[in-house]
């Protein structure tokens, strides 16, 4: 533009100086456009691992190739929310000679659990005169699974009833085991080794020791995916999945069978199982958990019977906001399941509002929650309010409740 205007002005005003001013601009334009060639840049993001933990750094590398020379190659990593560049920013500038291949080491940090598709890179190449710009977008193909950060749990909720297989939970019934239960009179068929000789000597009749066997238990994690209450950098669903992951890991360590039901707009389930494979299955199923809005009424009839084995402990992970999930908890209790609830407390995430009406609504909502909680407790469902306290302390609340509370007849 400058060159054209100067040339026209030179002709109009008959001043050769203006043509002299126009000449360098025109030359730069002519040479620059003549030399500009599409550098044919290709970019590939390679992750060191396809699984990582929340808040952990992940090594990655960006391999950049160019057929032609690029004076300034801008690379902008298109990272999804929840993943960020740990060391430098998500943008870099490099220079490439013809046929060059450059490997740029990167460190990524995942701030939220989930399944991410990475590898989206926006590329902008400029020629030496910065006259021509080539832009291209490479879409992501690398899948990264980010597991929730581990939560330390030393004690967990013991189910009311145990299953038939050997495990780590001391059963309430009597049988072959290690833990001492009681003594009783000897009956034919009792093993000699179980005779309690001291007690027999005192009573002048043979008595035998009775013991509690160690059995495994079935635990079903019942995750509420009807609603997700956000506030600041926290969300109830994120915390519920974190808690679910920690509980599943801890129960599986005790050789219990753990299953999963994601109860919400989309019903997800995983049949109870045990072992390391089940742990990965559980966590990866939970990673896919998201809120799918629905207005249809859903109840526990939708859940296949094999997913909820008899005598299983059903652990609800919920903010206790959606009435459908609260009703489902009551249903399960009414069907004889041992139900406990980890309430991911949404109250600190909700602001009271400024106006009088808003404040009043907030107080009514908090009171309504108390009523819901009381109705569940009346059914014999222990509730652990998990907010500011750590999860283990919150679970202690349910443990105490289950120790002293009288279960409602069902």
């Amino acid at each position, binding site marked *: 533009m400058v060159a054209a205007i100067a040339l026209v002005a030179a002709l109009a005003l008959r001043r050769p100086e203006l043509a002299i001013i126009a*000449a360098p601009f025109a030359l730069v334009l002519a040479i620059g456009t003549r030399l500009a060639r599409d550098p044919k840049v290709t970019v590939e993001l390679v992750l060191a691992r396809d699984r990582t933990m929340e808040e952990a750094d992940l090594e990655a590398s960006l391999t950049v190739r160019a057929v032609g020379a690029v004076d*300034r190659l801008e690379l902008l990593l298109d990272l999804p929310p929840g993943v960020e560049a740990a060391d430098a920013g998500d943008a870099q500038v490099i220079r490439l000679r013809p046929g060059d291949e450059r490997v740029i080491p990167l460190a990524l940090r995942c701030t939220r659990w989930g399944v991410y598709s990475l590898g989206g890179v926006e590329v902008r190449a400029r020629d030496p005169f910065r006259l021509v710009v080539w832009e291209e977008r490479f879409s992501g193909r690398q899948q990264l699974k980010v597991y929730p950060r581990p939560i330390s749990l030393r004690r967990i909720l013991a189910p009311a009833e145990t299953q038939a297989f050997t495990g780590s939970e001391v059963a309430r019934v009597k049988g072959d085991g290690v833990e001492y239960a009681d003594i009783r009179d000897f009956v034919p068929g009792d093993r000699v080794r179980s005779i309690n000789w001291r007690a027999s000597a005192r009573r002048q009749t043979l008595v035998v020791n009775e013991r509690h066997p160690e059995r495994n238990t079935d635990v079903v994690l019942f995750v509420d995916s009807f609603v997700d209450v956000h506030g600041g950098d926290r969300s109830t669903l994120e915390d519920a999945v974190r808690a679910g992951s920690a509980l599943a890991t801890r129960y599986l360590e005790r050789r219990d069978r753990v299953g999963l039901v994601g109860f919400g707009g989309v019903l997800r389930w995983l049949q109870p199982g045990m072992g390391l494979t089940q742990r990965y299955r559980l966590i990866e199923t939970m990673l896919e958990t998201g809120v799918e809005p629905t207005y249809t009424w859903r109840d526990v009839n939708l859940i296949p019977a094999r997913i909820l084995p008899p005598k299983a402990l059903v652990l609800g992970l919920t903010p206790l906001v959606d009435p459908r999930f609260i009703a489902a908890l009551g249903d399960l209790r009414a069907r004889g399941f041992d139900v406990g609830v980890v309430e991911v407390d949404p109250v600190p995430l909700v602001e009271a509002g400024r106006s009088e009406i808003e404040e009043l609504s907030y107080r009514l909502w908090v009171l309504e929650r108390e009523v819901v909680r009381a109705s569940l407790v009346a059914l014999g469902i222990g509730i652990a309010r998990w907010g500011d306290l750590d999860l283990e302390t919150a679970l202690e609340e349910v443990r105490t409740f289950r120790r002293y509370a009288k279960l409602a007849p069902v």
Partner: protein
Amino acid sequence: MALLGALTAVPLARASDDVVELGARVAAIAVVALVAALVLEWTALVPTAIVLVGALYAAQLAIDDAALDTASPAYAAGLLVTAELAYWSLEERDYIQGEPGASLRHAAFVAALGVATLLVASLLLVLVDTVRTRGLAVDLVGAAAAALFAIVLVARGQGRTSH
């Protein structure tokens, strides 16, 4: 900005009183345009500022009817370097960390561009000055150049038809 200030000062310093008042206004608009371009990141205002400064220079030459200005190569180089520096400044707003030495390399490139502009413009100035003398030797050189250019064109045309 300093370079643009210097470029506006040159014609204003040489201008007659008739030009100074109007020139000062144009210079102020040019400076404001460049400041706006850099602060608001409006790239379209960079050529506007350059054109305004060039217009100021052209107005001074035309109104004062000055002789052939020997400072025009330096002025051309100044304008080109100003434009390059302005665009470079806008590029740096992306806050993308570059490789070590990238800024130094680009500074050398801009400096080389300025020197090359100075040389080319000086060559053109010499040519213009020579043509202005209207000597027979120049006419002969011009005729020879035109004939050579015509021969080259014909030769290239024949080469294309044979293929």
